[in-house]
């Protein structure tokens, strides 16, 4: 079968295509989170983007916060954005970054607009008009090459490396073959597997960079008195014998195509194909970074089950654990337990996942979208 299936998306001024058509209400720092949430609660069609911290952050930490908040608003799934700041400077900084995409963006600042009530009223008026305008945008023909897809795993168990991760990896290969971009991430998950990624790199430069990601991550941990290894006692009990084996199980979800590029947390890939994002590993932080880097959809492979999703990027939960797909049926979008039960092979199960992916790309809702199990988190400095 041809893997190039019709994809209809929302066209954006910068030529990108959204799979959703949100109006984002972006808080610049935690001090204004309540106002951003209040505005979003008043205006249907808006999504509040808020998280802890953001105020007075310095260096790499501060840059990552600004880049991620702006990146979520720049994501093609966002039609327009309202930035809510405490003061004009930080609000304008993020608004300017978003404006570079050509999409409508405005900002308000609580200190200069006359407090919370005025900010809420004025913000809600701006957001209302943004939603009215955005709702007139129609889906148009696009292709898989318009899509950046993040692959993630969380709540991993013995089934992840033999069912949901390889099925995700097969879909990743099909997406790359069709001209799309797939982002593999979670820096601590690749410890022990970096040589395999390096061998699979498109150039020696990329190979060196992926090795450097692991060296940097372990070195940073050592400075804090932590020896990072990916293999823990319950992994060994579950049958994993070496760091290479565990990392390979995780890396599988990126598929087998050459690694084209390494990008930083919430940085947009400049290349098509398989890309690695050097970002924090825990689920919520990582999916935030992936969407901040432009991923319109996330495929989230889970063994034991993890409900969390990104509010900006529809997050498809896939599990191969026969127990999880029953017990957590409210959360799991795609059941690939037929691999474990011996009823289907990986490619056959991957087709089910790919079909669901296309449904979601064309507007079909994920379970986490319906449940509202969505969260944003931006990490502090530690390389976890």
């Amino acid at each position: 079968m041809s893997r190039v299936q019709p994809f209809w998306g929302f066209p954006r001024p910068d030529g990108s295509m959204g799979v959703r058509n949100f109006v984002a209400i972006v808080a610049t720092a935690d001090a204004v989170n309540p106002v951003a949430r209040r505005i979003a609660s008043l205006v249907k069609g808006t999504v509040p983007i808020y998280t802890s911290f953001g105020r007075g952050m310095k260096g790499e930490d501060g840059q990552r916060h600004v880049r991620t908040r702006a990146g979520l608003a720049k994501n093609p799934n966002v039609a327009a954005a309202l930035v809510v700041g405490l003061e004009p400077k930080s609000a304008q900084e993020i608004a300017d970054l978003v404006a570079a995409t050509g999409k409508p963006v405005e900002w308000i600042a609580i200190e200069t607009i006359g407090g919370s009530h005025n900010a809420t009223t004025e913000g809600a008026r701006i957001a209302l008009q943004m939603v009215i305008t955005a709702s007139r945008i129609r889906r148009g023909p696009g292709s898989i090459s318009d899509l950046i897809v993040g692959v993630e795993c969380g709540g991993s168990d013995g089934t992840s490396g033999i069912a949901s991760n390889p099925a995700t990896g097969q879909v990743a290969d099909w997406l790359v073959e069709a001209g799309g971009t797939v982002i593999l991430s979670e820096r601590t998950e690749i410890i022990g597997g970096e040589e395999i990624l390096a061998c699979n790199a498109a150039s020696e430069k990329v190979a060196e960079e992926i090795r450097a990601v692991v060296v940097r991550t372990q070195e940073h941990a050592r400075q804090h008195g932590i020896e990072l290894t990916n293999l823990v006692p319950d992994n060994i009990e579950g049958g994993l014998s070496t760091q290479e084996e565990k990392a390979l199980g995780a890396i599988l979800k990126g598929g087998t195509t050459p690694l084209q590029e390494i990008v930083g947390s919430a940085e947009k890939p400049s290349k098509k194909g398989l890309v690695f994002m050097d970002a924090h590993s825990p689920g919520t932080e990582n999916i935030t970074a992936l969407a901040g880097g432009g991923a319109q959809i996330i495929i989230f492979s889970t063994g034991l089950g993890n409900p969390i999703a990104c509010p900006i990027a529809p997050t498809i939960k896939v599990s191969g654990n026969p127990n999880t797909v029953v017990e957590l049926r409210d959360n799991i979008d795609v059941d690939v337990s037929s691999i474990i039960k011996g009823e289907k092979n990986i490619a056959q199960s991957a087709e089910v996942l790919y079909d669901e992916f296309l449904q979601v790309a064309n507007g079909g809702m994920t379970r986490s979208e319906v449940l509202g199990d969505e969260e944003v988190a931006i990490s502090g400095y530690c390389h976890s």
Partner: protein
Amino acid sequence: MNKALTLNEADNVATAITPLSQDEVVVVTVGKERVELKVRDPIPFGHKFAINDIADGGFVVKYGHNIGAATSVIKTGQHVHVHNLKTLRGVDS
């Protein structure tokens, strides 16, 4: 139904997808071939067993990649785990 999986035709180990008893006969699909063999040890769910004889010091291959080296001779059907497989990274896990 399959009781064990290989993920790449280059693999010399298979992963049990159900607990296997000692001397149980299993059929493993390796690429396009179907291999019948008897497991020599009890194999818990998620654990590996050899589908070929592996020399002492030989690579153990899963997912089509070396996941470590054998620390003793491993016979077809034997359990492959931390007792006879060591990382190639030079750091003990």
